[in-house]
């Protein structure tokens, strides 16, 4: 094996991206749409005006918060699919404060954000306890809790929190202005939340690279049994990782109700949690890539709104593009493994 990389090896990481582009281009052609028009519509939709850019950033905030949290749980070897529910419960908790507490903005908003974090943390801890004490794999516990969180929101907005004119099932009545995050230039972007997301990500990065806790999580994720024997209290660290991830996700949910919307709505998250999982998978759990990928996802999704309006194509196209991309990167992103797989195939008689 030579030390210098071959040319193929160097361009390899770009190939899945190109392949994903090819797949979507073929889909576009099959639907009779000009790919150039489609991609330029997407670009316009994401970056065409400053308002679009703010929208991309506003959508990025909860996504980045959730993805940052997931970096922690993945490090600990946990598949926190319940993140969707944690976002929702963060939104619910923030809404509770927004609806029930009357304080000056300077106190109200921090209280709402803290409540959001507590709500998400609690819901995550529940999935954690189900795993550590109940032996329920976090994928299934999390999934069930996601649906329960959605049902709980529906119950609230159709029941106790319905607006005075009656439950329309759309959401609660709008929160007072003092309870909402200040918005940047008439957009849905709250600079405060963007700053919080960046701080959260930086904090996670510090934890993972330089802290004892991060090291313990890594140990836990690599080999829970050994970590336990080396003195890592596996249950406690797992719960803690879940709770911190849930807190960040919950904060994202809080930001959703306090800036993107102005009230608690049904499906307040709408899959942002699942999207965050895809972000982290595409980033390959790498710190530096995570915010970039999150930004890319946010841009693609926002772009696909314009795509749909200009070409009248189904906007699931954006999801497909990202999905195919993640799949291809997962499958073929690692040059070494691909090379070995195909070499082995040639040399091995056994199927």
């Amino acid at each position, binding site marked *: 094996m030579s030390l210098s990389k071959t040319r193929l090896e160097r361009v390899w990481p770009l190939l899945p991206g190109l392949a994903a582009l090819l797949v979507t281009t073929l889909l576009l052609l099959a639907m009779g749409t000009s790919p150039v028009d489609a991609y330029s519509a997407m670009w316009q939709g994401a970056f065409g005006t400053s308002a679009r850019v703010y929208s991309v950033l506003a959508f990025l905030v909860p996504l980045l918060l959730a993805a940052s949290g997931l970096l922690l749980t993945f490090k600990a070897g946990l598949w926190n699919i319940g993140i969707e529910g944690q976002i929702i419960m963060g939104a619910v908790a923030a809404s509770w404060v927004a609806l029930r507490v009357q304080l000056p903005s300077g106190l109200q908003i921090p209280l709402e954000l803290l409540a959001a974090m507590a709500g998400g943390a609690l819901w995550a801890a529940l999935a954690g306890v189900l795993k550590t004490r*109940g032996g*329920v794999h976090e994928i299934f516990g999390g*999934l069930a809790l996601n649906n*329960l969180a959605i049902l709980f929101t529906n119950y609230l907005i159709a029941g106790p929190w319905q607006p005075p004119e009656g439950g329309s099932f759309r959401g609660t009545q709008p929160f007072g202005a003092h309870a909402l995050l200040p918005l940047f230039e008439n957009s849905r972007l709250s600079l405060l939340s963007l700053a919080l997301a960046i701080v959260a990500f930086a904090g996670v990065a510090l934890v993972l690279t330089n802290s004892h806790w991060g090291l313990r999580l890594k140990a836990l994720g690599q080999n829970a049994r050994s970590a336990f024997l080396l003195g890592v209290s596996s249950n406690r660290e797992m719960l803690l990782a879940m709770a911190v991830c849930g807190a960040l996700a919950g904060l994202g949910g809080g930001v959703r109700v306090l800036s993107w919307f102005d009230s608690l709505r049904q499906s307040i998250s709408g899959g942002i949690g699942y999207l965050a999982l895809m972000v982290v998978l595409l980033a390959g759990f790498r710190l530096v890539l995570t915010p970039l990928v999150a930004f890319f996802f946010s841009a693609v999704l926002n772009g696909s709104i314009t795509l749909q309006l200009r070409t009248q194509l189904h906007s699931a196209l954006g999801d*497909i593009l990202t*999905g195919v991309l993640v*799949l291809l990167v997962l499958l073929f992103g690692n040059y070494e493994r691909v090379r070995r797989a195909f070499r082995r195939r040639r040399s091995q008689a056994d199927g």
Partner: protein
Amino acid sequence: MDSTQLIAIFGSILLQSAPLIIAVCGETISERAGVINLSLDGSLLLSALAGFAAALLTGSLLLGFLAAAAVGAVFALIVAFGSLHLRQNQVAIGFVLAMLGDSLSAFLGQNYTRLPGPSVPAWHIPLLKDIPVLGPILFRQDAVVYFALLLVGATWWFLFRTRAGLELRSAGERPEAAFTRGVAVRKLRYIYAVLGGALVGIAGAAYSLDVKIGWAEGHTRGMGWIALAIVIFGGWSPLRGALGAVLFGATKALATVLQRSFPQVALVAFNAVPWLLMILVLVLVSGRLAAPLLARAPAALRRPLRGLLQAAPPAALGQPLDDN
């Protein structure tokens, strides 16, 4: 509620459980061979669409089921290829495919939304259908239900009573041992993952062509995850898995009945039942609870209880092959 109504309800429960039973059998086969196909939710959706669209376009139900099976098989093939050849994490691939199947079905299904289309005709089996109680429940159904029931028996028999089944299980339990005995582990894992995936595909078509006829975005969303949980509840046995699927269907039917009997209880409470049930059941069969429970049970009860409660996954489930 009189007895004919009860019988009718049981018949409907069986019909509504049929796709779950088929999917659970498929996934059980795959996992027994060592491959977790986590893509079930997306795979069910896309195959439901494929089955409906193919049957609608060709007018042939059989082609519908075949198309669906092909879609399920392709999904499973991707999982198998990713893990067996490229040595990537099965769970990650499966999860992404679950998401992708969802959005692909939404995109490709736009022009099929809620179109009237073909459905599997009822087929009452002569003589058997007249058996009191059992006749109406078991034999006044359609081909999908009969297929599901036969599949459960056939899967069980294949897994536990044939040499091929023995080899299948050895690939999921101890691939190194299987390899030394000449079992082509990798090949078997491919075959059974794909076979299991094809069955999942058939389950998808069973929804769109029989149990919930037609197509709409998110038509079967959630059922894939439920099926995966039932495989665990079923302790990787098709019999217990089928029982789990029927119990699940029964609980949902009960919730529908109860909703009407207790109008004062919030609707969400009933819609929460399946998810609460999922958690409860998984806690119950998990080692954490089952083991101490068993240790405390009277000796006479211990064996049957263990059969019902304890479920160890195939030992090499989800692990890549260690080929030198």
